[in-house]
């Protein structure tokens, strides 16, 4: 029996989910072939603006994709694009534009005068002769090749094909990569361009190229494939590591460039290039695994590469896909498998074999071995009619293999050997023998016992005190009659004050049982007596009837908390969603101002305080006070006046201090004034003293 507070139970659920996620990662779901979703994506990404595309390159990419995917509702851009094509053909435009103009013309077949082609061909031939950079060679040879297809009467054959071949080959590196120029940076993307150009040279050669040179290039290709990158699921791709002076190419365009180059080269040379079928299949997996790219260029590279893979001479990948990876035992679903080429067309006659199937829990014991799937002509699916009795609910890995009927097919097609597919088999788990009871602690005798139908809506109400035990048990049985342990089997007791306690229900075989001894739980229940709602959660990904239902309530009578160590109630867990709600308004507390007397009264008292002063002055007059003692000679009189002025100044300073000055300024000024006052005060007072002393002595 295990008591989990709410936090740790959440954590446990998370862990279970993670474990579950890891357990199915052994086998990765297969990407299916190209579908209609790609078609709609293509129409969306290649949408012409004002009846035409932004550039000839984009026009070509769009037209080519529509052609490959056989898109029916393609936009008609012929009227706007053909003038552009002609314009680029007539004037001497950069090689790249010329190249794409010819490519677009190849698809649209605009009306172009044969003389124009002748002009271009002679211009291009001169370029080929002088070209130093790979890109120039690529575009000019590519253009010549296009002219050859579009105007058969124009002479495009290269006189010095051997020399051109050599100048391209001279840029190759020992690792199969190519350089763009004489500079030492090599690139995989450039290798693709070079191979395509070499294929072009072979096609355009007036005399046959030396076979030994061709074989050297074949070796380069094999070396290039040694640097191929790989994912664990058998996906292969090329990536550009070094970013030289040229713009960086991503893995999609790099892989695509290599695919174009290698297949173009394979198409024009006799003999086979010995590339392993799993690498070709891995490339297909790479392009299919992208899904639907959000970028037009990526989509073009993906689709064009897949089209080349579909009909290449080395080996054609066959893609095995499953319409669904979840099978329900209760619905008696049939296991269906589909085999297509990458673009989704039908595969050659073949048999799909289920080599074995094993549960992710027990990987060593196979539940199915060596079964052939039946081919259903109508739907094009390979079907396994009935899942054998050994297959119970759970997560399985099915291992398929394709066996081609034509024995020579192995040379043409890449099937990828054994393919692992995760399969979920779900079903309705039978919940039975649910029993809920309150037991006396010491004897174990049953006080109350009730049976429940968990499938129905039965509700029980029980009462217990801290000397008793609570027992709840039920059974889970799979459709095949085996024990079933779900991911989640929790019993929750929730007090009316919202404090809740979650217990994991453990099992022994089919039987799940939990016994709560309230004597030991008193403290964990915070001594809270009262009504507890009971809730049961049983859930699993493969359990079709996962449920969370209330079982009723329990009236619990717990002893009072001992005052000495009464546990403080922990704060209730906050609903995480309230965090995003509005915050409570903050009310600021200000000190209420003190009650002040009415102004009138204060003014009256101010004048009252002046009364004693008046009394003082009147008293002085009555006493006959006079200033006769004021010194009459000049110097002492000055000192006397200054002395009084000094005192007045100090007092004024005090008033200023009260009104606005701070203590430091006041003290500094007071010190100055004090010195002055001391001086003049001493002078006048000593003068007065001497005069009075003289008077006395006189």
């Amino acid at each position, binding site marked *: 029996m295990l008591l989990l507070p709410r936090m740790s139970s959440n954590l446990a659920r998370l862990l279970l989910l993670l474990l579950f996620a890891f357990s199915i990662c052994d086998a990765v779901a297969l990407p299916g072939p190209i579908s209609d979703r790609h078609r709609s994506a293509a129409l969306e990404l290649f949408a012409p603006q004002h009846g035409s595309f932004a550039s000839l390159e984009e026009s070509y990419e769009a037209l080519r994709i529509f052609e490959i995917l056989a898109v029916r509702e393609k936009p008609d851009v012929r009227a706007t694009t053909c003038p552009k094509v002609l314009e680029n053909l007539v004037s001497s435009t950069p090689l790249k534009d010329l190249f794409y103009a010819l490519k677009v013309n190849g698809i649209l077949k605009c009306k172009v005068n044969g003389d124009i082609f002748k002009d271009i061909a002679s211009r291009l031939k001169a370029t080929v002769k002088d070209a130093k950079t790979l890109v120039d060679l690529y575009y000019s040879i590519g253009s010549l090749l296009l002219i050859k297809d579009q105007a058969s009467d124009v002479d495009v054959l290269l006189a010095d094909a051997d020399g051109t071949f050599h100048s391209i080959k001279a840029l190759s590196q020992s690792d199969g990569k190519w350089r763009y120029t004489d500079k030492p940076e090599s690139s995989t993307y450039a290798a693709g361009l070079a191979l395509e150009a070499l294929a072009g040279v072979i096609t355009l050669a007036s005399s046959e190229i030396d076979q030994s040179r061709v074989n050297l290039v074949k070796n380069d290709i094999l070396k290039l494939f040694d640097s191929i990158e790989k994912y664990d699921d058998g996906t292969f791709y090329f990536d550009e590591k070094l970013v030289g002076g040229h713009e960086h190419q991503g893995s999609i365009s790099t892989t695509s460039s290599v695919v174009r180059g290698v297949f173009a080269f394979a198409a024009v040379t006799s003999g086979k290039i010995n590339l392993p079928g799993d690498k070709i299949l891995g490339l297909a997996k790479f392009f299919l695994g992208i899904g639907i790219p959000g970028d037009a260029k990526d989509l073009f590279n993906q689709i064009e590469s897949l089209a080349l893979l579909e009909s290449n001479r080395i080996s054609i990948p066959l893609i095995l896909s499953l319409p669904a990876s979840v099978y329900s035992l209760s619905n008696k679903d049939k296991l269906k498998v589909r085999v297509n080429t990458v673009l989704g067309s039908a595969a050659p006659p073949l048999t799909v074999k289920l080599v074995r199937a094993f549960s992710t829990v027990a990987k060593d014991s196979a539940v199915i071995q060596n079964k052939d799937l039946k081919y259903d002509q109508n739907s094009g699916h390979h079907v396994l009619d009935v899942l054998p009795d050994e297959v119970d609910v759970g997560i399985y890995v099915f291992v398929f293999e394709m066996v081609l009927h034509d024995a020579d097919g192995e040379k043409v097609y890449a099937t990828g050997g054994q393919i692992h597919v995760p399969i979920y088999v779900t079903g309705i788990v039978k919940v039975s023998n649910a029993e809920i009871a309150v037991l006396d602690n010491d004897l174990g005798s049953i006080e109350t016992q009730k049976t429940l139908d968990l499938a129905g809506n039965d509700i029980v109400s029980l009462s217990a005190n801290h000397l008793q035990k609570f027992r709840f048990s039920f059974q889970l049985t799979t459709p095949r009659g085996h024990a079933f342990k779900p991911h989640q089997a929790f019993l929750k007791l929730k007090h009316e004050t919202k404090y809740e306690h979650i217990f994991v229900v453990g099992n022994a075989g089919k039987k799940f049982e939990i016994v709560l001894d309230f004597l030991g739980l008193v403290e964990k229940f915070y001594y809270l007596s009262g009504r507890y709602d009971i809730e049961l959660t049983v859930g699993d990904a493969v359990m079709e009837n996962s449920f969370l239902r209330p079982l009723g309530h329990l009236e619990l009578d717990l002893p009072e908390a001992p005052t000495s160590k009464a546990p403080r109630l922990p704060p209730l867990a906050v609903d995480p969603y309230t965090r995003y709600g509005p915050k409570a308004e903050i009310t600021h507390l200000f000190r209420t101002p*003190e*009650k*002040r*007397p009415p102004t009138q*009264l*204060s003014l009256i*008292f101010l004048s*009252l*305080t002046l*009364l*004693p*002063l008046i*009394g*003082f002055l009147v*008293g*002085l007059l009555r*006493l*006959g*006070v006079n200033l006769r003692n004021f010194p009459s000679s000049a110097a002492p009189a000055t000192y006397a006046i200054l002395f009084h002025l000094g*005192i007045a100044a*100090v*007092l004024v300073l*005090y*008033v200023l*201090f*009260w009104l606005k000055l701070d*203590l430091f300024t*006041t003290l500094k000024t*007071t010190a100055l004034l*004090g010195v002055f006052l001391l001086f003049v*005060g*001493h002078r006048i*007072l*000593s003068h*007065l*003293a001497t005069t*009075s002393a003289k008077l006395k002595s006189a």
Partner: protein
Amino acid sequence: MARSTSKDAQDLFRALWSAYSATPTNLKIIDLYVMYAVFTALIQVVYMAMVGSFPFNSFLSGVLSCVGTAVLAVCLRIQVNKENKEFKDLAPERAFADFVLCNLVLHLVIMNFLG
């Protein structure tokens, strides 16, 4: 009896007054000044009793200013009085200088405390 009592009191006061009349004028001035200070303090106390002691520091500084200067004036009076043989050697000008200095210090504190 009652009559004789009031007459006695009148006599007593008259005797006191005539005795006080002999006091030198400068001491009378100081006495007047002390009276003035004490009455000012009393008026402030009455005001406080009527409206409450907020702001208490202002009340305290007002009253203490009056009481303090009265006490200083009393000290001055003691020193100036010729009858007091104790301060025979102290010149009244020196006593006055002390009085002024103490008053200035007292009022610096009072002003600081006034708020």
